């Protein structure tokens, strides 16, 4: 027992160090900005309007994404078909793309000149209008439905095959399966997925603005921009950032309270066969759902590829060096994410430290502008910020990707501990042995997913690099913006294709590595 205790302490120490780093990057930078402020004007009615709009659009977007994600994930979980693996990989694509690339892809499909409108005109109907509330929702669902699907699918795949076998032998129909197996799993996975998407929508303002059709689409993050750009009002920026974190924190508290712990007993990792879903009507329903979701997600990606291909041959060399730089940053930040996420997950699960999970999840709600400024204020007196552009980008990206990694790892580790923890304890398997013999083998799938996601996210993120970049050292997203900013839209389309391809490749390599066994 004493030994186990000491080992736990070691795990907690590593976890505490990881948490300290995360807090320094998020709340520490916020405090730095606030301390640097000379004055702070309070929040006016316009700011509160921004808070209300931010909350509203985030709740609607997250609800829709999750509500649509559940049936799609269920369909993917109980069907096997050619191209399923590819489709699951492509599910990672939309939300790792820089906003502007994804928005242009959406416009190529749903815009005034897009293929949907062209088809409608050809059929003698009115073209669709993407701009307005429907545009914001469309874009957010495009970004987040795949993420919701992936996170929920992760939950479905974690239900041991033996339970479905048992259910089949008891003669359970789809309704019984839903009640006994799927709903408990959903209560475990859905609040977390909802939370992550809600937080993502809280801080994403470029989409809301570009497709929202007007200034009513003002989010808190935009108000932070305004405070910085117009009045150099650091106090107000910090205050708004704090409001954003508080909203996110309250949402996280509610979501984590709603999450049910697992506890039904383990399985033997057999391939899952679903006797319950053989009914032709169910097959049709699932097929339709998958086809619709695939079409909705893949068409814009195809348009990005089609627009980008002609420019590939004539891209400036700087785009390729920027690609290499981005790949390096992505790999470093992906491994940093795991290095942070694994000890934190262990701490959260073993100590039931929900508060740690809360802090680890809040990082998405931190304003990139405030993080960048805070780090700048901290680093500027010591070193040349441009010299640290890439390491800082990697670190901030790692912290930003942490909530996704925790979403994948914490439920999985909770299940492992519930299923095998007592056995491991009775064998005296602690510390390293437990990590190597129990956790790592059984966490392969979520680890692969989390690493891939973190790498791809970092690849596509503009984040703080814009604040620190030196002229010769930009990443690929920055190079893409530079091309567009210089009217060179064709070359930018080529760069967008490279970005899409390399993000997907990174995601695929890690994610595939994690699920080599079950999805063949």
């Amino acid at each position: 027992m004493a030994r186990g205790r000491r080992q736990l302490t070691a795990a907690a120490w590593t976890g505490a160090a990881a948490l300290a780093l995360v807090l320094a990057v998020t709340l520490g930078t916020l405090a730095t900005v606030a301390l640097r402020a000379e004055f702070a004007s309070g929040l006016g009615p316009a700011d509160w309007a921004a808070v209300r709009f931010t909350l509203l659009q985030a709740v609607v977007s997250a609800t829709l994404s999750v509500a649509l994600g559940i049936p799609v994930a269920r369909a993917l979980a109980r069907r096997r078909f050619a191209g399923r693996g590819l489709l699951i990989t492509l599910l990672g694509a939309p939300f790792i793309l820089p906003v502007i690339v994804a928005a242009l892809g959406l416009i190529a499909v749903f815009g005034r000149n897009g293929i949907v409108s062209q088809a409608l005109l050809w059929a003698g109907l009115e073209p669709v209008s993407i701009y307005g509330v429907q545009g914001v929702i469309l874009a957010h669902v495009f970004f987040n439905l795949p993420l919701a699907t992936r996170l929920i699918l992760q939950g479905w795949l974690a239900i041991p095959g033996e339970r479905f076998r048992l259910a089949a032998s008891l003669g359970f129909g789809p309704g019984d399966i839903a009640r006994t197996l799927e709903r408990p799993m959903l209560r475990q996975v859905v609040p977390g997925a909802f939370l992550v998407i809600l937080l993502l929508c809280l801080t994403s303002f470029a989409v809301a603005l570009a497709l929202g059709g007007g200034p009513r689409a003002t989010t808190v993050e935009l108000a932070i921009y305004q405070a910085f750009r117009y009045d150099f009002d650091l106090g107000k920026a910090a205050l708004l950032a704090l409001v954003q974190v508080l909203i996110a924190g309250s949402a996280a508290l509610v979501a984590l309270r709603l999450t049910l712990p697992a506890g039904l007993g383990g399985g033997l990792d057999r391939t899952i066969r679903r006797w319950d879903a053989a009914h032709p009507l169910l097959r049709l329903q699932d097929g339709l759902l998958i086809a619709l979701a695939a079409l909705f997600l893949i068409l814009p990606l195809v348009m990005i590829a089609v627009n980008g291909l002609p420019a590939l041959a004539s891209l400036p060399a700087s785009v390729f060096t920027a690609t290499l730089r981005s790949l390096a940053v992505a790999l470093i930040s992906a491994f940093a994410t795991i290095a942070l996420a694994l000890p934190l997950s262990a701490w959260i699960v073993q100590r039931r430290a929900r508060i740690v999970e809360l802090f680890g999840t809040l990082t998405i709600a931190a304003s990139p502008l405030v993080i960048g400024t805070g780090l700048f204020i901290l680093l500027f007196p010591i070193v040349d910020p441009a010299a640290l552009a890439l390491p800082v980008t990697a670190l901030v990206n790692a912290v930003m990707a942490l909530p996704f990694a925790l979403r994948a790892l914490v439920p999985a580790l909770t299940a492992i501990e519930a299923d095998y923890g007592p056995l491991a304890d009775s064998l005296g398997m602690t510390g390293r042995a437990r990590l190597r013999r129990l956790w790592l083998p059984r966490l392969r799938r979520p680890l692969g997913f989390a690493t891939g996601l973190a790498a791809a996210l970092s690849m596509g993120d503009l984040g703080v690099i814009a604040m620190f970049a030196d002229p010769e050292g930009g990443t690929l997203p920055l190079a893409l913006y530079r091309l567009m900013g210089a009217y060179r839209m064709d070359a930018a389309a080529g760069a967008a294709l490279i970005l899409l391809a390399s993000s997907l490749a990174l995601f695929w390599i890690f994610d595939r590595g994690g699920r080599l066994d079950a999805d063949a």
Partner: protein
Amino acid sequence: MKALTIAAGFAAIASAAAAETPVLTIYTYDSFVAEWGPGPAIEAAFEESCGCDLQFVTAGDGAELLSRLRLEGARSDADIVLGLDNNLMAAAHASGLFAPADIEMPELDLPIDWEDDTFIPFDWSWFAFVYDKTRLPNPPHSFADLMAMDYSILIQDPRSSTPGLGLLFWVKSVFGDQAQEAWEKLNPKIVTVTKGWTESYGMFLEGEADLVLSYTTSPAYHVIAEDDDSKAAAAFADGNYLQIEVAAKLAASDEPELADAFLAFMLSDAFQSVIPTTNWMYPAVLPEGGLPDGFVELERPDRSLIYLGDDVDNIRDEALDEWLAAAAN
């Protein structure tokens, strides 16, 4: 201990080298130093004669440049900031970070008289609505046309973008107290408001709207770089609002003479002749060879609108409130 000695040695070498070649640090916006931007040619040309090392440090745009300099304060390495504009000048003056330039001013080719001796113009253009002649045979010639007819427009948010802020001032300077009513009439035509110029111009090229808020000089890019003369910018009878981009010397610069030398160089032919086809703006001083083809044919508005002076920030806040109020109705 050894490592320390080596480090000290390196530091000594570095400072000796620094003593031989002075370094001129210029803070500018990102697109200025892109390989297709003006930066590389200008760096090479200035280093030929100055016996110095010119180093660029970048931030996103003019507003971010000013924020960054205010964050860094007197400790900044910057000797020159290049890329603020008329709308930022009042705030920049008030910051007290900049010093008057000690240079001989050549004759400037600006639509207005220039009096400021701290902020030196290097290029300029008018904000304008750009359209595709093949898609829009009847372009607007005034805000009245824009409000009366069935156009679709893309603009940028004044809170996050320079042209977006320009339009806010433009409407305010044309309509004064009636600006809110003007926005209420314009809003139904506005397809969407994007965070930056990049997004809306990209959407315009995809055919999402008839008109996009950009510059009168934007069509020159399509003519010169793409051999495409289908784009045009509408000159308005009300006048078009000016953007004048400026550079200034930092008061805390440790190379003030070199900084002045650069500001003088900035108004010379070697700098100014590069500007039109790299920054796609009018040069502040007419180059010896005149303007390149593609610029000569551009339509020019008869009236130039601009707010200069200390109350710019108040006008901006008032105009923004009106814009937001109009959108809420």
